[in-house]
C-alpha cells in the first residue's frame, strides 16, 4: 500500500515542475479569488494582482519596488503652468493581446485611453453601468468625476486631460490599478455581439501576460504576451493557484506546489527562514496601524490626556506579541518608506510615571474608557484584540480602566467613524498610490471628519498644509509642507501611532527577479525560475 501511494505521489505530485522542462511555469499561491478582471470596478488588491498587473498597463506605472510613477503607456507628458492641463504622448506600436476570443486589428491609441477613463467618470457613458451593479469605487474615491473636467483625444497618440483644479497626486493616481487601459476595439466588438459583461470575464490588455482562463475559486492561467512592448517576461506560463488559508499556502510552498506565496502567518516566518529550500524577502509595508482617540469627546479633547495615554502604550510589546517582530513601532502617520517621512519627529517615549503625572495634572482621575478592537486581521494589524489587551494592561498601570469592545467588521467600519463614538478605536490604512496625501489628507484632513478621520480631528493649521501640498507640484516644497504637517500631528496627538508592519514574501530557492512592491502588489513580469 505504502509503495502504491508513494508511486502515485511520485507520478502525480511531480506536477508541473517535472513538466516544466519545455516551458517555464511559475505558480503563485494567491490568497483569494479575484472579484472579476476589470480593475476599474473593484478595490481589492487580490483582484488587481490577477487583473491590472499581469494583463493591463496604465499611462504611468510605479517604478518596480518604489512608489515613484514613471512612463507607462504614456511615453511623456506635459503639465500646464497652472497645473490643470495634462497632455500625454502615448507610446507608439503598443499591441493589445491576441487571445482565442479576440484578435486586435489596431495598436493602442488615444481612443482606448479616453474610453478607459471616460467610462469611469461619466454616468452617461454607455459603459458606465455595463454590468449590473457596476460601481467605480476607486475613481470615485480619488475624486475623478469631480476632478476631471474633460478627457480628449488630440490625435492618435496624444490625449489631453483637463482638471477642474490642480491636483499634485494626479500622476500617481493614474498609475493605480483602477486606471488600467482597456481596449476600446474589444469593448466595441463585445457591445456589437451583445456580450458586454465579457469585458469583466475575459480581459484583453497590453500587459506582460495574456489571460488564458479562470476556473472559479481555483486556478487562473496566463501565458507570456509575445507582443509585450516592455522587456519580455522570462517565464512562459503564470498560474495563480488560489489557496485561501495561509497555513495551507505554506504547506504548498514547502511541497513545491508553488513558487511564491503572499501573506504568511507571522508564526511560520521563523520556520520559513530556516528551511533550506525557501528564501524570505522582507520590506516595510506602506501601512500604519493606529489608535484614534475621539478628539471631540471629553476627556480626549484634552491634549494632555491624549499625550499621557500615548506615553503609556508599549508599542514594542505589541510588535513582539502580535507581529512576532514582523513590524516596526510607528512614529509618524505615514510609513518610513514614503517620501516626505519626517525623521525629525520624536515619538512619545514609553514612560508610565510621566503618563500618570500628566493625567493627574490634567485633573483626570479614575478614567474608564473603551478601546475598540477590529474583528479582522489586516496586514497592518494582525490581531487587534491582542493589541487591545496589551493596551488595556498598559493603561491599567496608570490607573485607566479599559473595556475592549468589538463589532462585526462592517458594523465596526460604520460605528467607528461616528462623530459621537465613545473611546479610542484601533484602525489602520494601507497606501493606494504612495503619495503622502493618501494618508495625511485622507485620514486626518478636516473634510474626512465623520468619515476616514476616525479621530474626528480637525486642526486648521494641519489641514491648510496638506491642502496646499495637494496643489503644489514641486516635490521639494510638498515634502517641506508634509514634514511640517507631521510635526503638528505629533504635537497634537489625535492618534497613538502603533506600527508599520513588514511585508514578508516567502518563495522557493531558485526564484529570481521578484521585487517587493511597497504598495503590496504582486507582479511577475521580471520573475525567473531556475530549471
Amino acid at each position, binding site marked *: 500500500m505504502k509503495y502504491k*501511494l508513494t508511486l*502515485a*505521489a511520485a*507520478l*502525480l*505530485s511531480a*506536477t*508541473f515542475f517535472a*513538466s516544466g522542462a519545455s516551458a517555464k*511555469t511559475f*505558480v503563485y499561491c494567491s490568497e483569494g*479569488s479575484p*472579484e*472579476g478582471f476589470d480593475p476599474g*470596478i473593484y*478595490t481589492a488588491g487580490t483582484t488587481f494582482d490577477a487583473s491590472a498587473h499581469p494583463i493591463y498597463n496604465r499611462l504611468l506605472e510605479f517604478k518596480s519596488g518604489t512608489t515613484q510613477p514613471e512612463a507607462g503607456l504614456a511615453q511623456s507628458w506635459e503639465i500646464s503652468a497652472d497645473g490643470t492641463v495634462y497632455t500625454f504622448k502615448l507610446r507608439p506600436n503598443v499591441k493589445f493581446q491576441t487571445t482565442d476570443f479576440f484578435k486586435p486589428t489596431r495598436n493602442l491609441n488615444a481612443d482606448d485611453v479616453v474610453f478607459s477613463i471616460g467610462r469611469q467618470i461619466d454616468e452617461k457613458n454607455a459603459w458606465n453601468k455595463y*454590468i*449590473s*451593479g*457596476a*460601481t467605480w*469605487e476607486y475613481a*470615485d*474615491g480619488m475624486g475623478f468625476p469631480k476632478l476631471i473636467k474633460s478627457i480628449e483625444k488630440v490625435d492618435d497618440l496624444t490625449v489631453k486631460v483637463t482638471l477642474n483644479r490642480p491636483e499634485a497626486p494626479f500622476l500617481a493616481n493614474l498609475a493605480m490599478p483602477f486606471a488600467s487601459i482597456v481596449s476600446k476595439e474589444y469593448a466595441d466588438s463585445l457591445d456589437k455581439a451583445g456580450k458586454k*459583461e465579457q469585458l469583466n*470575464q475575459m480581459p484583453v490588455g497590453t500587459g506582460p501576460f495574456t489571460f488564458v*482562463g479562470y*476556473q*472559479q*475559486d*481555483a*486556478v487562473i492561467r496566463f501565458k507570456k504576451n509575445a507582443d509585450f512592448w516592455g522587456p519580455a517576461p522570462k517565464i512562459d506560463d503564470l*498560474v495563480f*493557484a*488560489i*489557496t*485561501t*488559508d495561509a*497555513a*495551507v499556502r505554506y*504547506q*504548498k510552498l*514547502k*511541497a513545491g*506546489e508553488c513558487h511564491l506565496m503572499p501573506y504568511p502567518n507571522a508564526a511560520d516566518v521563523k520556520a520559513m527562514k530556516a528551511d533550506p529550500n525557501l528564501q524570505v524577502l522582507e520590506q516595510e509595508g506602506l501601512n500604519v496601524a493606529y489608535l484614534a482617540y475621539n478628539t471631540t469627546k471629553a476627556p480626549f479633547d484634552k491634549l494632555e490626556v491624549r499625550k499621557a495615554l500615548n506615553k503609556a502604550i508599549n508599542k514594542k510589546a505589541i510588535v513582539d506579541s502580535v507581529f512576532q517582530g514582523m513590524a516596526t513601532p510607528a512614529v509618524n502617520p505615514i510609513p518610513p518608506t514614503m517620501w516626505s517621512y519626517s525623521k525629525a519627529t520624536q515619538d512619545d517615549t514609553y514612560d508610565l510615571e510621566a503618563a500618570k503625572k500628566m493625567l493627574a495634572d490634567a485633573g483626570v482621575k479614575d478614567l474608564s474608557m473603551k478601546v475598540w478592537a477590529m474583528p479582522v486581521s489586516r496586514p497592518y494589524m494582525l490581531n487587534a484584540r491582542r493589541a487591545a489587551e496589551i493596551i488595556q494592561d498598559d493603561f491599567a498601570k496608570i490607573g485607566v480602566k479599559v473595556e475592549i469592545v468589538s*463589532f*462585526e*467588521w*462592517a*458594523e465596526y*467600519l*460604520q460605528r467607528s*467613524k461616528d462623530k459621537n463614538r465613545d473611546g479610542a478605536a484601533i*484602525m*489602520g*490604512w*494601507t497606501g493606494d498610490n504612495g503619495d503622502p496625501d493618501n494618508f495625511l489628507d485622507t485620514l486626518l484632513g478636516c473634510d*474626512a471628519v465623520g*468619515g*476616514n478621520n476616525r479621530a474626528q480631528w480637525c486642526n486648521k493649521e494641519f489641514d491648510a498644509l496638506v491642502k496646499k501640498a495637494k496643489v503644489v507640484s514641486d516635490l521639494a516644497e510638498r515634502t517641506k509642507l508634509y514634514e511640517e504637517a507631521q510635526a503638528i500631528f505629533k504635537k497634537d496627538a489625535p492618534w497613538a501611532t502603533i506600527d508599520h508592519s513588514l511585508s514578508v514574501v516567502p518563495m522557493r530557492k531558485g526564484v529570481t527577479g521578484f521585487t517587493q512592491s511597497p504598495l503590496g502588489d504582486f507582479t511577475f513580469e521580471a520573475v525567473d525560475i531556475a530549471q
Partner: protein
Amino acid sequence: MFGFLLRRIAVLIPTFIGVSIIAFSFIRLLPGDPVALLSGERVMSPERHAQISAQLGLDRPLVVQYFDYLGGVLTGDFGSSIVSKKPILDQFWALFPATVELSFCAIVIAVALGIPAGVIAAIKRGSIFDQGLMGIALVGYSMPIFWWGLLLIILFSGTLQWFPVSGRISLMFFFPPVTGFMLIDSLLSGQKGAFASAISHLALPSIVLATIPLAVIARQTRSAMLEVLSEDYVRTARAKGLSPFRVVGIHALRNAMIPVITTIGLQIGVMLAGAILTETIFSWPGIGKWMVDSVFRRDYAVIQGGLLLIAAIIMFVNLIVDLLYGLINPRIRH
C-alpha cells in the same frame, strides 16, 4: 406510490417559500451594510452610498425587494453578486459539481466503511473490536474538521508527500470543464495521468469530510443492528438453520437499514455544512467556500440565492430518501 410522491412534493412547495423568506430576511437581520463594505476602510460619501444602494435596489422596502426577488427566482433569475457582479446561477453551477463530487466521494467512503463497521461491531458486541470501533467513532464524531484537515495535510502532504496539498487536479493538466466533475472531465480529456491526479487530489478532502458521517453511520448501524438482532424473526431464522451470513446480511440488515438510510439522508445536509470547512482548508472550489466568503462580504444576493439553491437540493435529497423508504418498507407508502 405516485400518490405518495405527489403528497411529498406538495409539502415541498410551502417549505421552499418558507426557506426563501428565511434566506432573504435572516441575512438582513445581521449587522453590516453590504454597500459600505464595498469600499472597505475607505469611507464612502453618503451621496455615493445612497446612489449605489439605489442602483442595487437596496433602498426599496424589504417587502418590495422580497417579491421582486421571488419573482426573479420563479423565472430562474437569482440576481447577480453584489461584489463580483456575476449572475448567481452561473457561479452556482460552476462551483456546485466540485461540492457534489467531494460530498459523493465522502458519502461513499462513509457508507462503505461505516455500515460494515457498524454491523461487525453489533455482531461482536462487547468485544475489543466493538469497543475500539465505537471509541474511534466517538473521536471521529468529535473531531474539529479544520484541525483534522490541517493535520492530514501536514502529515501526508507536507511531511510524507504522498498526496498533493490542495486543489482538484495537478496544474500541469488543463482542459475545459465539460461536466464540472473533475473525475469525469479528466477521463474525457484523454490526458495521461489526469484521472489519477484528480483521484489523488480528492483523497484527503474526502477522508476529512467523510469522518463525521462515517462515525455517525457506524454508530447508527450498530444500534439498529443490535435492536434487530434481538427480534424474534432473527431467532427464527437462526433456528431454521440459515447461515449466519444470510441471517445478518439478508434478514437483519434490511430492516436495520431503515434508520440508517434516514441517517445517511440527514448526513447530506451535515456534509454540506462540513464542506464549508473542508473546502476552505483544501482550497476546493465549491459552494461552501463561496457562501462563507459571501457572508463576510454581506453579499445578500449570493447568500440568499445560494441558500435557496442548497435548500432546494437538500429537499430533493430528502424526497429521494423518503421514496427509498417507501421502496424498502411498503407500509410507509400508505
